C-alpha cells in the first residue's frame, strides 16, 4: 500500500479523505480537525470579503495553501452562469485551475442540476479549468462528464448534510465500472462506517464536511474518518470473501477426539 497514491489530472494526493471547511465553530477547530483527519485536499467557498469588519481572520491564515490542495467550490450556485462566474472568481482568488463544480437544482434537496452541470463543465474545461463535478449517482451523467473532459467525478452518497449514508450502492458500483477516472464519493456520509463502505465498494476517495464538523466532537470524528477511509481502502485492495448462505468451519475437524 506504499504506492497507493491517488492521481487526478497529473496531481498526486496522499490522502483519500477530502474534507470541507464549513460549519466549524471557529478556524482553530477547522484547522485541528483537518490536521487530525490527515486530509490533504480541502474544499473552500468563495464569498464577499467582509469590508466593514477587517479584523476578521482569513481562512488561509489557518489552512496553508502550500501544505494543502485548496479546492474551491461553486457552492450556492443554481445556474450555469453563476457557477461559471464563481469558478472564474475562485481561479482569480487562488492559485490553481482546480474547481469543484456544483450547479444545484433545488434548495430542499441540493441535488445537482446535471444538465446545467454538464453545460458549465464544458465552458470551464474549454477555459483550462480542471473540473471536478459534484454529480448525482447517475452512471450516464458520470460518463458524459468524463467524455467532455472531467478527470474525476464526484457522485453523491446522499443529499448534502443529510448523513444518510450511501443511498444507492448499486448505482455507485455501476459508475465505478462505467468510468475509468477516479470516483470521489461526495456528500451524505453520516459516520465512519459510511465512509468505509464507500471505499470498500471501490471509491477512490471520499469528500465530507458535515459528518465531521457537525459531530458532537468534530476532532474525534475527523480521526474516525481517517481510519474508516484507510480501512475501507485496505479492505477493497485486500479483496473480501464471497458471501455464502451457510457456515464454513474455520477450525479443522481432523485431530478431534
Amino acid at each position, binding site marked *: 500500500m506504499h504506492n497507493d497514491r491517488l492521481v487526478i489530472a497529473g496531481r498526486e494526493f496522499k490522502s483519500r479523505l477530502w474534507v470541507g*471547511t464549513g460549519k466549524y465553530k471557529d478556524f482553530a477547530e477547522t484547522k485541528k480537525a483537518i490536521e487530525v483527519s490527515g486530509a490533504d485536499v480541502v474544499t473552500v*467557498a468563495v464569498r*464577499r470579503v467582509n469590508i466593514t469588519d*477587517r479584523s476578521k481572520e482569513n481562512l488561509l491564515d489557518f489552512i496553508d495553501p502550500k501544505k494543502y490542495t485548496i479546492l474551491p467550490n461553486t457552492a450556492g450556485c443554481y445556474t450555469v452562469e453563476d457557477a461559471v462566474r464563481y469558478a472564474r472568481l475562485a481561479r*482569480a482568488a487562488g492559485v490553481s485551475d482546480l474547481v469543484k463544480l456544483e450547479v444545484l437544482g433545488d434548495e430542499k434537496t441540493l441535488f445537482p442540476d446535471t444538465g446545467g452541470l454538464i453545460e458549465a463543465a464544458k465552458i470551464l474545461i474549454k477555459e483550462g479549468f480542471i473540473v471536478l463535478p459534484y454529480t448525482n449517482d447517475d452512471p450516464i451523467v458520470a460518463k458524459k462528464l468524463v467524455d467532455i473532459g472531467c478527470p474525476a467525478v464526484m457522485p453523491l452518497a446522499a443529499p448534502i*448534510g443529510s448523513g444518510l449514508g450511501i443511498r444507492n450502492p448499486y448505482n455507485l458500483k455501476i459508475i465505478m465500472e462505467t468510468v475509468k477516472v477516479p470516483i470521489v464519493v461526495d456528500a451524505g456520509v453520516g459516520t465512519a462506517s459510511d465512509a468505509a463502505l464507500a471505499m470498500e465498494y471501490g471509491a477512490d476517495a471520499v469528500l465530507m464536511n458535515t459528518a465531521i464538523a457537525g459531530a458532537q466532537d468534530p476532532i474525534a470524528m475527523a480521526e474516525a474518518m481517517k481510519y474508516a477511509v484507510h480501512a475501507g481502502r485496505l479492505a477493497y485492495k485486500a479483496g473480501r470473501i464471497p458471501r455464502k448462505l451457510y457456515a464454513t468451519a474455520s477450525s479443522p475437524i481432523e485431530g478431534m477426539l
Partner: protein
Amino acid sequence: MAEPLQIQVNGESRDCPSGATVGDLLRDLDLKTERVAVELNLEILDRQEFDRRGLKAGDRVEILSFIGGGGPDDGWIRRVPTHAQ
C-alpha cells in the same frame, strides 16, 4: 483637490479619491491582494491589473476571497447576489 468618487464596494456605497485605482482601494481596505479576487463591473481582473485600473464614479466593485465551505449551502454564508441589481 478633485471631488471624491462614489462607487459601490460589495454592495455598499463608498467614497474614494479621484484618480484612485483598484489597488489603492484594496490597500485602503487593508486587504492582501494575493488572497482576493476582484470583479470590476462584472469583469474579473488579473492581479497585475489592480494598480492599473482606475476607478470612476458609479463603478461596481466586488471583492471576494475563500471562506470555509463544503457542501453547496452552509446556511450561514452570505450569498453574493448576482442578478439582483
